[in-house]
């Protein structure tokens, strides 16, 4: 299987002097094309920083991150922005949609900054995605007049607009009730089944149990890892047992 992301000995710290905080202390990780990886760990363990470092949203202090064979540290701002726009999708915990735009405009926003865009095709694609995630009727709706789950679906549509190689999710179900969270995870599982790699950062074992590989982090290091089969939709109990047992072992 071809590697899409390779992180070697990543070191990242924040602050200076006495206030310096080492968020990542030499983390190495590889991710295959089409793989579903979850990263778990307590608050402050460095899981979000790892995601930001691997996606190039944060420059690492030391070590190397490659995305599809390209060393992210050597890319100029425009090249990195282009990579974010065309090869990566991001879904965050809070609905990171812009308040002065409606749902459809938010979804197509990043596609519109492509100079050779075809607006009709972009809107058509956005409508197809909205239909797929069940928010087709909300395209003209103001973002303040929809639920958190609907906003998150819109966020997923936005992330999928460029047919990315990888979707990064930072606690995408963290602000949702259990029903919405399950629906969102069903969408993620469907996306992954279509061949898109997914990396999710989560506290929730039920969310992580959907992944093929789960990394457990503590104090800026990966302390344990578990590999599971592709999620079939019927083996959740068994997967949950394995994940929770490993969490206990890793003291997470």
């Amino acid at each position, binding site marked *: 299987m071809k590697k899409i992301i390779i992180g070697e000995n990543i070191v990242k710290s924040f602050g200076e002097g006495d206030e310096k905080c080492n968020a990542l202390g030499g983390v190495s990780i590889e991710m295959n094309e089409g793989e579903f990886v979850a990263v778990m760990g307590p608050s402050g363990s460095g899981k*979000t*920083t790892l995601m*930001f470092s691997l996606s190039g*949203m*944060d420059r690492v202090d030391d070590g190397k991150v490659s995305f599809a064979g390209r060393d992210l540290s050597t890319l100029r*701002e*425009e090249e990195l*922005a*282009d*990579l*974010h*726009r*065309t090869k990566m999708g*991001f879904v*965050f*915990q*809070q609905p*990171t*949609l*812009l*308040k002065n735009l409606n749902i459809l405009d938010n979804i197509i*926003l*990043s596609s519109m*900054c492509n100079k050779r865009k075809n607006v009709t095709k972009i809107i058509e694609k956005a409508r197809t995605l909205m239909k797929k995630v069940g928010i087709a009727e909300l395209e003209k709706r103001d973002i303040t007049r929809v639920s958190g789950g609907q906003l998150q679906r819109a966020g997923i549509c*936005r992330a999928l607009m460029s047919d990315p190689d990888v979707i990064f999710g*930072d*606690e995408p179900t*963290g602000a949702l009730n259990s029903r919405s969270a399950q629906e969102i995870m069903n969408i993620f599982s469907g996306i992954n089944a279509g061949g898109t790699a997914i990396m999710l950062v989560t506290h929730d074992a039920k969310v992580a149990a959907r992944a093929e590989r789960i990394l457990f982090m503590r104090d800026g290091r990966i302390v344990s890892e578990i590999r599971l089969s592709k999620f079939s939709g019927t083996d959740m109990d068994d997967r949950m047992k394995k994940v929770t047992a490993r969490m206990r072992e890793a003291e997470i």
Partner: protein
Amino acid sequence: MWCVLSAELSDPSLVDGKVSEYANKYNFAKVSGIDGYIAQTFGSTIRSVGKASYAAIAVALVITILITLLFMKMLVAKYRYPIAVMKALGFTNPDIAAQYMSRSVSVLMIGLVLGTLLANTLGEMLAGAVISSFGASSFHFAVNPLTSYLLCPLMMTGSVLIATRIGTSGAGQIKISESIKE
């Protein structure tokens, strides 16, 4: 007792010669060309108004730059989160700066049109009221179209663009991870 006699020459280029000729011929009279007459009578007022207009241009430009800088810095601070989101979606710093530039220029265009209209209506009335306190009975703007409708708007546009560029430079410092991290 004085009285003023005006004469208009059919050939204005003869004014200087005729002034000298009449001054020599009529020693008891004070003879001057119309330009000289205006300069002697209203010279200080005209010079003051001229200085005031240059000062007004300079002050207007400084105020324009300061206000634009202030607003841009405030907007960048206020929209820190949406800016971080846009950067995460693949927008570059020049893309974001261009967006703020277009906003600035839109507001500027409205300001220029309104300013020009008001200067030609209310402005003349207000300036006339101030100038009349210096002794002039009536006052009219002598509008120089090149300066009023081209140079001043261009200077203002340039100032606004520079101030916007400087004001939005802070958007480049916004780190996606620090602004979006849950």
